[in-house]
């Protein structure tokens, strides 16, 4: 979408001074520089945090931290900053949880920031994206995939999709919401579907 929401974080946060970044700038930076590194971030998180069910929460917290930081100053280059943020977050969590599995601490000390996890670079070109997208779409249940296709490729509205598929609009909404989340996971997060499909 072309329009950016008209909120500026500095309004909401009195601690920020004049140099603060506009939210739209942070969004642009986030989409351009951070999201392409999501696969690397996810690999790092999965490597250092054994509880798979919490990975999505960790990812969100990393993004929140770096975007809050970016309101003041855009970190450049982004990759070491993202990984350092992930590392600090993990250490914070371990501390708070009090029961700290020894191997995790050891792991972090061992790898530290030097852990420059090799991962797909941004230059992973269109064909990789195509394959990923294919994998993502294949992973959707057929009806969900159909709803996404009707919306995405044919440009139908929600109502038209519901009519075409002969289901309720609520069902279409469920399909689309799920499709959006899976597409993001696969395109950015290099989630397992990709591994299987290629």
């Amino acid at each position, binding site marked *: 979408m072309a329009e950016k929401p008209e909120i500026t974080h500095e309004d909401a946060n009195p601690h920020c001074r004049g140099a603060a970044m506009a939210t739209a700038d942070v969004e642009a930076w986030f989409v351009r520089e951070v999201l392409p590194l999501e696969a690397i971030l996810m690999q790092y998180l999965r490597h250092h945090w054994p509880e798979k069910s919490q990975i999505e929460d960790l990812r*969100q*917290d990393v993004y929140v931290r770096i975007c809050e930081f970016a309101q003041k100053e855009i970190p450049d280059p982004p990759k070491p900053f993202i990984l350092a943020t992930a590392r600090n977050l993990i250490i914070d969590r371990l501390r708070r949880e009090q029961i700290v599995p020894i191997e995790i601490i050891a792991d972090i000390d061992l790898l530290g920031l030097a852990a420059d996890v090799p991962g797909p670079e941004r230059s992973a070109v269109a*064909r990789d994206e195509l394959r990923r*997208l294919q994998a993502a779409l294949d992973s959707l249940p057929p009806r969900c995939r159909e709803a996404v296709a009707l919306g995405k490729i044919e440009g139908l*509205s929600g109502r038209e999709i519901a009519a075409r598929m002969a289901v309720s609009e609520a069902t279409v909404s469920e399909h689309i919401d799920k499709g*959006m*989340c899976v597409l993001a996971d696969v395109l950015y997060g290099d989630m397992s579907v990709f591994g299987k499909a290629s």
Partner: protein
Amino acid sequence: MTHATHKESAPADAASVNACAAAWLRRRQFWDWTEEEQAGLDAWLAESAAHRVAYWRLNAAWSRTDRLAALRRETDDAVGRSKKRFGRVAAASLAIAIMIVMSAGFWFLRPLEKTYTTALGGKQTIVFADGSKIELNTDTALRVNFRQRSVWLDRGEAYFQIKHDPRHPFVVMAGSGRVTDVGTRFFVRRDLSRLKVALVEGQAQFDSLNIPSETPKSLLPGDVVIATPTSTTLLRESSKNLSSELGWRKGVLVFEHTTLLDAAAEFNRYNSEKVVVADDASAHLTINGTFRTNDVEAFADAAHGVFGLRVETRNGEAIISR
């Protein structure tokens, strides 16, 4: 170490934030989007950085797939032209890209149709990625399969301006008739039991599915095919006549030695207020003139002024008689 998540100072768990972000994005993309909803989204985004990053992320992924869809179309289009247009290196890399697309069994390539309809008096133009255009006249329904470059004219009339693509001929199906283009401008009009195809420019082929023994007819500019369930007739019309018949594209009806009966029938295609010519003698008077498609009154005035006919309006009908 597993159950501490909920004590986080960070906002609600990522899954539910994601679900909310998806719901906003979906409403914005697929349902009518009002200013109030925009305000609601803005407020939700302002609530926390977690909301913002989740929304940005889904939105970015969703838009990124748009680009992939576009890439697919360009790649598809480029196949037929690559040899002429690109240098050898470019052609080679393009070929590789295309092979990969094909080997992916690309999901986008599944056949899908889209339906377009116009109301009485309505008009609509559909533009293809390659610049080909279809203009729909009043009260028309057609289905388009963009991938196969196929169109089904279910009712009404449409004017086609098609960019030729040797690998993907453009096909129009209308009732029992089929038009295959070779780079053309033509129109197809489907009335109750009569199909009319007129070629304005270029080359095309017409064949009838009802009469399979017939060989396909090659059409040249000015050729007009009239097909009924039992017959196919080939006529010639002057280009002036054809462009008169396409007056609707500019919102006008052009009559030349047209009987009042036929003229009334033309008006009735565009307007809910019907024109009725009540007696035989009046019906066979002929008129010349250009009228706006929705200006029944001007037509009635002309009938009155030129021929001294009576015009009465009754039950939403304009009745013309001696």
